[in-house]
């Protein structure tokens, strides 16, 4: 329902401005805090006056958080998750929409169920698998008696090991395996007229060719929208990176580093100015990505290209 009356418009704008304020106020507060000295930032009440310590604080935060390494790690994580997600989502949706095989409905529901099981819910089994990615295979071999058979025949005790802890693969893979993107693609693929696939068939293009040369270019806006969402989602991950990396110096992410910079209440004066400067640093990459992509992002979510 779209109404256009002056009063209605005014109310809409008021709500929008209110929302904007709610979103921007903390950001502005972080920014002001990051410009102040440690004494100024601890003064009560909080003053929104800008100080001139921004560069000093940023420098201190960069040093202490080791953000050179951490931002790079976060970037690898977020890019990996984004690429993996976009590819898996497109392929799985392609399979669900365009192929008619007997297990299709089952796969569809399995994927659908993962929507209800985000990483936080299945974190313990996921961790177990990350600790040894081949554990399920080992279990199958043990249960079916194949490993016992091999042990008897060759004397070799089968014990498969593939540890993903403290690795980029371990960081990335579990975050890739969810269904959100599959559904976005599925919705888009269902709006693509069947005749397009049939025309491609008549032109001699096989399934893979149709996928790469026709479906993928057509879903460009969807892909960019999904990539944007996934990048921000992966960038902001905290729990999983915390669990899977023990060697934080090498594999820690920017978000973990940021969390460690939150001053604890038992020291001297809490240096919120440096913490806020760190927050600004960590916030910047996703903001840049969203700013660059927002044109596509909005289009991909609300409409499909003709």
């Amino acid at each position, binding site marked *: 329902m779209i109404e256009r009356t002056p009063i209605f418009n005014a109310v809409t704008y008021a709500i929008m401005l209110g929302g904007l304020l709610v979103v921007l106020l903390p950001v502005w507060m972080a920014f002001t805090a990051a410009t102040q000295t440690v004494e100024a930032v601890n003064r009560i009440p909080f003053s929104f006056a800008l100080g001139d310590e921004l560069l000093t604080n940023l420098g201190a935060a960069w040093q202490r958080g080791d953000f050179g390494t951490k931002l790079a790690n976060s970037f690898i994580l977020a890019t990996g998750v984004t690429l993996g997600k976009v590819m898996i989502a497109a392929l799985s949706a392609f399979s669900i929409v365009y192929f008619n095989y007997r297990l299709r409905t089952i796969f569809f529901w399995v994927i659908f169920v993962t929507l209800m099981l985000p990483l936080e819910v299945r974190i313990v089994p996921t961790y177990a698998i990350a600790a040894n990615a081949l554990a399920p295979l080992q279990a199958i071999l043990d249960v079916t008696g194949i490993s016992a058979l091999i042990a008897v025949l060759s004397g070799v005790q089968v014990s498969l090991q593939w540890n993903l802890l403290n690795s980029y693969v371990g960081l990335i893979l579990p975050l890739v395996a969810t269904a959100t993107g599959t559904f976005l693609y599925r919705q888009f693929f269902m709006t693509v*007229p069947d005749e397009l696939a*049939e*025309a*491609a*068939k*008549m*032109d*001699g*293009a096989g399934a893979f*060719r149709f996928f790469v040369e026709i479906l993928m270019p057509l879903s460009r806006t969807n892909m960019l929208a999904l990539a944007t969402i996934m990048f921000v989602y992966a960038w902001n991950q905290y729990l999983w990176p915390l669990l899977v990396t023990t060697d934080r110096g090498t594999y820690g992410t920017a978000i973990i580093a940021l969390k460690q910079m939150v001053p604890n209440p038992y020291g001297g004066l809490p240096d919120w100015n440096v913490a806020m400067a760190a927050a600004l640093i960590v916030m910047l990459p996703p903001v840049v990505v969203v700013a660059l992509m927002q044109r596509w992002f909005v289009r991909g979510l609300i409409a499909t290209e003709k």
Partner: protein
Amino acid sequence: MSSISIRNVRKAYGKREVVHGVDLEFADGAFVVILGPSGCGKSTLLRMIAGLEEITAGEIRIGDKVVNRLEPRERGCAMVFQNYALYPHMSVAGNIGYALRVAGVPKAERERRVAEVARVVGLENYLSRRPGELSGGQRQRVAMGRAIVREPKVFLFDEPLSNLDAKLRVQMRAEIRRLHKRLAATSVFVTHDQVEAMTLADTLVVMNGGRVEQVGAPAEVYHRPRTRFVGAFIGAPAMNFIDGTMAADSFTFDGRRVAVEWPFARAHAGRPVALGVRPEQVELVAADSPGALPATVDFVEELGAGRVVYTDIDGLPFAVTLSEETDLAPGERVGLKLLPQSLHFFDGETGLRLGLAESVETSRAAVAAA
């Protein structure tokens, strides 16, 4: 170039059968039009020829090869879809040349052939445009170009003109005709538009409810509809039907009597029969003329070149076309004089044309002799 042979072909979706055993033979280079109401299975039949639908039972041959198990690309057919199905992200040249690209034709030759086809369909100045920047007629031409470029043995058209406005439709019809003359590939054209069907077809196939009702030249189908359905479906305004009973020398209905000169009347005497009369084969005469059916004028439709007078014979609607001007007013009483040699008789139960076994010439001759 190839003949097409369809033998006892059936199609079922799940348990529901939608094509019930179709037998057709299309000669090499023929222009075949499949005509029928919406949902009668014409697209399904066409798509089975193309290889886009599996054939539940029966056999389809293109040339002398059974194609039941062949992929679409192996059948040598090109198809033009109703909504064109152009690739929106490719230019006109990209669309036309896609099949060649897939087939691995070298770039230089591809460009040459695309340019040539573009000239044939009149798109040489639009090669770099996207489909979104073209008019409906131009998109239609791209779709045709895409089909032509592969030099297929068989062209399949699924209602390709139904998204165009009336004027463009006439124009594209002529172009398709011209193209067919030039390429001489066997063409199968599906439509629900009888004018399109009559004007394009060498061979007309009329389908209804998943069955073939009649196959023949357009004029033959028009003049000698094999079933009541075909009679009703072809011709505008539609054929008038009167349900009644046959007698030795007349047809009676509702206590009225129409004298007929029909050599087979005696053979069918006493049976329920539907009498079919085309609106253009009726004369309007004075209400009290001897032998005329009295009727009341309902309204008159002015068509410019002619006019249709809608009358009713005591509740039974009956249309008459006139070529001359008329000042008939609603409510006026008129007489309908049915031309005896232009009556069609259909079995009251099966709807099949009666006297089918005998040729037109015999019955005409008999009428003339009588």
